[in-house]
Structures are given as structure tokens and as C-alpha cells.
């Protein structure tokens, strides 16, 4: 070899809760970046690591228990191994739980991937009284095994050493084959004979693996088989085996794999402590208690929520100050009276747009810090269980409760929080209904209208009614979506309860950093572009007359602009809802951000920035009825989520279609609901 630096690609595989992320963090530090696997919404994390003369590119595969074709995560993990052919697959094993964790290792072996096993959390296993004969296990499986403690950076060097060694080894795959018993082996052999014609498949996989997958009725593989004779033969074999065992071959195969693992562990693992004393059980008795569980959860969520928005207020204030300073500073380049369009573009369009993006960052960082703590300690698994009883009724998973709660603060981080939901249908349903949870920005609208139209004693009730309508609509919409577009079995609840742990500071920091960066990259750019477009629509075209006039008001510009004209055009459609042109103009502005509604109303009434909001309330009272005011608030609650929401929905669902569907669906729903309320109100009065 002449080249000095060699590149090695490593795939990191492992069960959920195996401490895979801590090993990944330990290997790569902050040198990671997050993306998605092409075409699916499964997260892909990559990072670099240097070891001696090698540069290791480490790809974190999704955490899975198995490599079947039943979930997107498992297909992604397995396709990566087949198609990208990583030099080594490091399988992270939870040492305290090795039998189940080795199940994945056995499947990786069957794929003939070069594997190194990392027996992680070996300290926890030791405390539980487990003693491993590593040498024996290593020879039984034919694989190198390294003991690690990911969150303490222990064993990482040895792991790298073993990995690099395996990567250079010619004979790097284990030659161990699980024996499935005579009946199954006979069928496997028959199928392997039949497979000779499947040249394309054989290029990618070994024939034994394909045969096993055929018996498991693996949909991904069945799709790729060209010869119907092969499919027929597979079906015959399955029927034959089903008759012999009275069970699906797939289950029998799983059983044999576990049998092999059990046998190996009986020889090489000793348990020196009989009963598992359990602090985790004691905590669980309290936090998952039928009566106390829910109040404890609500209290914790309140803290998360409060922390996100209360502490978030400070950095948000600083950011606002900074952007205010920047816009004043840039405005200073133009002498008074000679403000050009370029100034308006830079200050109102671009700076306003960037400010609109960055302003959410403190909330997102704080929120994900809290989520990292809840997930890291193991509480999240319990929380999902506690809320499952309620959420199950509307066809969602218990964990959906968390983004919904966050949605009352801001829909943008709430949608990002949906990543904690593993099931795709659950995730998309939750994302779609999230804008119905009235966010903080909409409070500015309520705060303008409620005091203007309702007596003091009714104000709280009206506000509560608005929130309540949103929640009820969300529940109904979620239920309908789950019964129609996003139908699917509500996954019966089975989940691991990982023991409680103390999360490391580093892990929390990395998690925050990842989320923040992802938000800026994915959503930020879209929000910026749309903000500039909306600025343009609100400022152009300009009439020739106005160009010469000294003091053209914002009001006149707006009326003459695309937004103004569009409002005029749309006005007839909104008449039955009790809206006039001013309201429509403000609603178009609110598409950028809900709080823009109030600013736009101010402009249409030609209220100068120095005047108090009570002046605007006076004018509103003169022009509208309480019923109209209520309808405006109702429409703002339900309709058209803001651009930031649209952008995040697109990014998180992976498809622009869902974002459009959400936007259009909610707007249509808003129209119908408001129409009914307004017309009914008119009829009754």
C-alpha cells in the first residue's frame, strides 16, 4: 500500500436502548451530521473518527431488534449493509441483556457482514452479577468481541483497534451458520437450487440468506424475485413447514436463532446474583402508578413547557434586540427621506426573515435539552405508557401527548418533537393535527380582539373556549385520519422499560446541537424564502403616483400591492364568514407568522407605530360585532399554519404533499367551521 491514510466505512448497528448513541458519541464527538436516508424519514447520523493512519467514517444505523421487512428502520439498516457494503459492522450489544441483543448479531452474521461485537454497558452487567467468558463467546460466534462502557469512553480504543483489524482481514466474516433443523434445512437447500436463475438477487445477497428470507415471507425480497417458479417453490416449502410445525416458519426460524443464542450463553455467561434488586422497579411503582402516574407526568411536562418558554424568553429578547439594532444600523446608511426599496428589502424582507427563523432557536434548543434528559434517564418510555390509555382512544401512541403539549407554545418545535414517535402513521397523524393546538403567537391575536369585544368577566372563558375548540377539532381530525388516510393497526403496546440512568452532559449537548442545526438547515432556508416572497407581495407593484409623493403611507402601499389586490379579489369568498377586505389582508400577512396579523391590521387602519393598541381596539369596535371578532379568532386558530410550520412539516414528513395537505385541509376546515358559526350566530341574533 502506497497511500498513507486509509478510509474505512463503519456501520453502527444495535438494539434500541443498547447505548448505541453513547458509543457513537464517544467515537465521533461533535464531528457528526444528521440527515435522512434517501426517500424515507429515517434519520441518518454520520461522523468521522481518526485512529492511527485510518479515517473512519461511522454511520449510525437506526436502532432495531431485527432485520425483517416490517419497518422502515429495519429495511434501511439492512439495505445499507447490502448496498453500501461497509468495511465493518460494529454491533453494539447491551451486556446486561445479551440474549435479545445477540439476536440482531445472528442476523447480521447470516448476511455475511464483517462484524465486531461491542459488549456495551459492561459496568451495568457487572453490577447485575453477570460474568462473561469473552473468549468462549468470541469463538462460539466466530467474531471479535470488545467490552465497552460508552458513556465513560472506556474500551473505545480497543474497539477501534479490533475494527481496523477486521477491516484489513481477508477472512473477516464469521463462517458460523445456524442450523435450523433437518426439515427447514431441506427446504432451504431446495430453494437455493431454484434460486440459480435469480442472477440480480444473487449479486447482492448470498443464496442461503435469500432462501431464509423467502421462508420468512420477506416482502422486500419477494418483490425482487423475478421467476414465479421460485415464488411457487417458496410457497410450497412454507405450506409444508406450516403443516409439520403448526406454526409460521418465520416464528420457527426466530425460535431456532434464539435457541442457538441461549445455548451459547448457557456455556459462556454466568449469573452470580440470583435476584435482581431493583431501584428501577420502585421508581416505576410510583411514576407509572394508575392514580399518580398522570399527575406526575403532567407536572413534569409543565416544567418542560415552562422552561422552554420562560427561560427561552431571555435569549429571544436578546435576539430581538440584536436584530432591532442591526435593522436600525443598516437603515442608518440611508438618509431620511431617501429610503430606497433596497433598504426595505434588506431590513423588512431579509433581516425580518432571518430574524423570524433565528427567533425560534432558543425554544428549540431548550426543548430538546429537556427531551434529551427525559429520554436519557429512561422516563420517556414510562411517560408513553402513562398517556397511552388516553391517546389510544384517538388512535395515537402515548408519546404523541408530548408534541401536543409543546404545540401550545409553538408548533415548530412540536413538529420536530414528533421524531420520538417510531410509527410512521402515528407520526404523520400527530404532525398534521398539531397546528390545531393554539400556539403562543396566536395569543397576540386573541389579546387584540378579546379585550375589544368582550366584557372583563367573559374574557377568560372566551379564551378557554377557543383553546378547547382547537383541542376537540384535533382529536376528531386525528381519529378521522387514523380511520381513513392513515389507517393501520394501532400498534398494541409492547415496550422495553430500560433501567433508569443518569444521562451524560455530553450526550445532552450533542442532542441539542443536532436539533438546532437541523432546524436552521431544513426549515430555516424555506422560511427565509417565503418571508421574502410575502414581503414582495406586500410592497409591489407600486403606483407611479406614489413614487413621486413624499409621504406615501404603508397603508397605501399595501392596498396597491399584490396582497392588497388579492384581498380585494378574495373578499367575496370571505363575506359569508363576516370578513371584509381588511381582515383578508391581515390573514394573508398571517401566513408568514400568526403575529403578523396584528401588525397588518394596524397598517390597514393606518395606525402609526407610536400609537397604543387601544386606538386600534376602538376602531375595531366601531367596525365589527363580537360575533365577527369571535369568527376572526376562530379562523386564525384553525386556518393556514404559518410558513415555519409548513416548512417543518415538509422537512419532517419528507414530502411536500403532506405539508400542502395540512395547509389546505386546515384552511378548508377553518372556512367550514367559521361559516357555520357565523351563519348560525347571525340567524340566532
Amino acid at each position: 500500500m502506497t497511500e498513507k491514510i486509509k478510509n474505512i466505512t463503519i456501520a453502527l448497528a444495535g438494539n434500541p436502548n443498547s447505548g448505541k448513541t453513547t458509543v457513537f458519541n464517544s467515537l465521533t464527538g461533535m464531528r457528526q451530521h444528521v440527515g435522512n436516508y434517501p426517500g424515507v424519514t429515517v434519520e441518518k447520523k454520520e461522523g468521522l473518527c481518526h485512529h492511527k493512519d485510518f479515517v473512519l467514517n461511522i454511520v449510525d444505523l437506526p436502532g432495531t431488534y431485527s432485520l425483517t421487512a416490517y419497518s422502515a428502520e429495519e429495511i434501511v439498516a439492512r439495505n445499507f449493509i447490502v448496498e453500501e457494503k461497509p468495511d465493518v459492522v460494529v454491533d453494539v450489544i447491551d451486556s446486561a441483556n445479551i440474549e435479545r441483543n445477540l439476536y440482531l448479531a445472528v442476523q447480521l452474521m447470516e448476511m455475511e457482514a464483517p462484524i465486531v461485537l461491542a459488549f456495551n454497558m459492561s459496568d451495568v452487567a457487572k453490577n447485575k452479577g453477570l460474568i462473561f467468558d469473552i473468549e468462549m463467546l468470541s469463538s462460539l460466534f466466530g467474531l471479535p468481541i470488545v467490552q465497552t462502557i460508552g458513556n465513560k469512553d472506556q474500551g473505545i480504543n480497543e474497539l477501534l483497534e479490533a475494527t481496523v483489524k477486521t477491516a484489513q482481514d481477508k477472512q473477516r466474516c464469521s463462517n458460523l451458520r445456524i442450523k435450523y433443523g433437518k426439515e427447514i434445512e431441506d427446504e432451504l437447500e431446495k430453494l437455493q437450487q431454484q434460486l440459480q436463475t435469480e442472477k440480480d438477487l444473487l449479486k447482492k445477497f448470498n443464496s442461503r440468506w435469500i432462501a431464509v428470507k423467502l421462508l420468512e415471507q420477506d416482502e422486500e425480497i419477494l418483490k425482487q424475485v423475478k421467476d414465479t417458479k421460485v415464488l411457487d417453490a417458496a410457497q410450497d416449502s412454507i405450506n409444508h413447514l406450516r403443516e409439520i410445525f403448526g406454526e409460521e416458519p418465520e416464528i420457527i426460524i426466530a425460535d431456532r436463532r434464539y435457541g442457538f443464542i441461549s445455548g451459547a450463553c448457557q456455556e459462556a455467561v454466568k449469573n452470580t446474583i440470583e435476584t435482581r434488586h431493583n431501584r428501577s422497579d420502585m421508581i416505576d411503582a410510583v411514576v407509572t402508578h394508575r392514580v399518580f402516574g398522570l399527575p406526575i407526568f403532567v407536572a413534569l411536562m409543565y416544567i418542560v413547557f415552562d422552561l422552554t418558554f420562560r427561560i427561552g424568553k431571555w435569549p429571544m429578547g436578546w435576539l430581538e434586540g440584536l436584530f432591532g439594532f442591526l435593522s436600525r444600523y443598516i437603515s442608518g446608511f440611508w438618509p431620511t427621506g431617501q429610503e430606497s426599496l433596497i433598504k426595505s428589502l434588506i431590513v423588512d424582507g431579509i433581516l425580518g426573515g432571518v430574524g423570524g427563523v433565528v427567533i425560534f432557536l432558543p425554544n428549540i434548543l431548550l426543548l430538546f435539552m429537556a427531551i434529551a434528559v427525559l429520554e436519557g434517564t429512561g422516563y420517556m418510555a414510562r411517560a408513553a405508557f402513562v398517556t397511552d390509555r388516553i391517546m389510544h382512544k384517538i388512535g395515537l401512541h402515548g408519546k404523541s401527548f408530548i408534541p401536543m403539549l409543546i404545540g401550545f407554545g409553538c408548533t415548530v418545535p412540536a413538529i420536530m418533537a414528533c421524531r420520538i414517535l417510531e410509527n410512521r402513521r402515528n407520526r404523520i397523524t400527530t404532525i398534521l393535527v398539531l397546528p390545531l393546538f393554539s400556539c403562543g403567537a396566536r395569543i397576540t391575536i386573541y389579546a387584540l380582539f378579546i379585550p375589544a369585544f368582550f366584557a372583563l368577566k367573559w374574557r377568560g372563558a372566551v379564551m378557554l373556549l377557543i383553546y378547547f375548540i382547537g383541542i376537540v377539532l384535533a382529536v376528531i381530525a386525528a381519529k378521522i385520519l387514523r380511520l381513513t388516510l392513515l389507517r393501520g393497526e394501532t400498534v398494541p403496546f409492547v415496550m422495553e422499560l430500560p433501567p433508569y440512568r443518569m444521562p451524560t452532559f455530553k450526550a445532552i449537548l450533542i442532542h441539542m446541537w443536532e436539533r438546532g442545526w437541523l432546524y436552521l438547515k431544513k426549515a430555516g432556508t424555506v422560511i427565509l424564502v417565503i418571508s421574502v416572497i410575502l414581503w414582495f407581495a406586500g410592497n409591489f407593484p407600486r403606483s407611479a403616483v406614489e413614487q413621486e409623493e413624499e409621504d406615501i403611507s404603508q397603508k397605501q402601499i399595501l392596498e396597491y400591492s399584490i396582497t392588497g389586490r388579492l384581498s380585494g379579489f378574495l373578499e367575496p369568498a370571505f363575506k359569508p364568514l363576516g370578513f371584509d377586505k381588511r381582515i383578508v389582508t391581515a390573514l394573508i400577512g398571517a401566513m408568514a407568522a400568526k403575529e403578523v396579523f396584528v401588525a397588518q391590521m394596524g397598517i390597514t387602519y393606518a395606525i402609526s407605530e407610536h400609537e397604543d393598541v387601544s386606538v386600534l381596539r376602538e376602531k375595531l369596535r366601531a367596525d365589527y360585532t363580537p360575533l365577527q371578532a369571535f369568527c376572526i379568532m376562530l379562523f386564525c386558530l384553525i386556518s393556514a399554519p404559518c410558513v415555519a410550520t409548513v416548512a417543518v412539516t415538509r422537512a419532517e414528513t419528507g414530502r411536500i404533499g403532506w405539508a400542502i395537505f395540512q395547509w389546505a385541509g386546515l384552511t378548508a376546515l377553518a372556512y367550514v367551521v367559521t361559516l357555520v358559526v357565523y351563519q348560525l350566530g347571525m340567524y340566532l341574533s
Partner: protein
Amino acid sequence: MKSKEEISLRKVSSGTLVMLLKIDAGQGLKVRLAAMGLLPGVQFTVINNGHPGPFVIDLKGNRMVLGKGMADKMLVKPISKND
């Protein structure tokens, strides 16, 4: 033939060691459970049978929580600890 001892997991009281006999579910769910180690023939202890609180089992030292619907679908045979 249905054995007398064959009962729904839901009815098993806390602290009992049981053997899983059958899961009354679709192929997809059965395989998912199999991957998590819940296969016919496997033994586990019921830590908490769900009243009050969640249905928690101990499967080879690993805590798992099951929904009540899930516990209904599992047929088990209680095993006396003295065997």
C-alpha cells in the same frame, strides 16, 4: 386440546412465573414480538399484573411493559417455582 392451565396472561397475578404458549395475533406482530424475545416456549415472570399500574414482565432480566390488549392476546401456562 386446550389444557386447563392455559390462561390469558391478563389473568395471571403478580410474581408468577409463566411459560408463553401462544400469541393470538397477526404475523407481523408475532414476528416483532419474536424479535424482542417473546416467543412461544419462553418463560418470564409477571412483575406487575396491571392493577394498579402497568402490566410489566421480567424477561431474562429485562423489563417490558405490555398494553392490556397485548396481555389479553397472550396465552400462558403458570409454572410452579418448585419445579
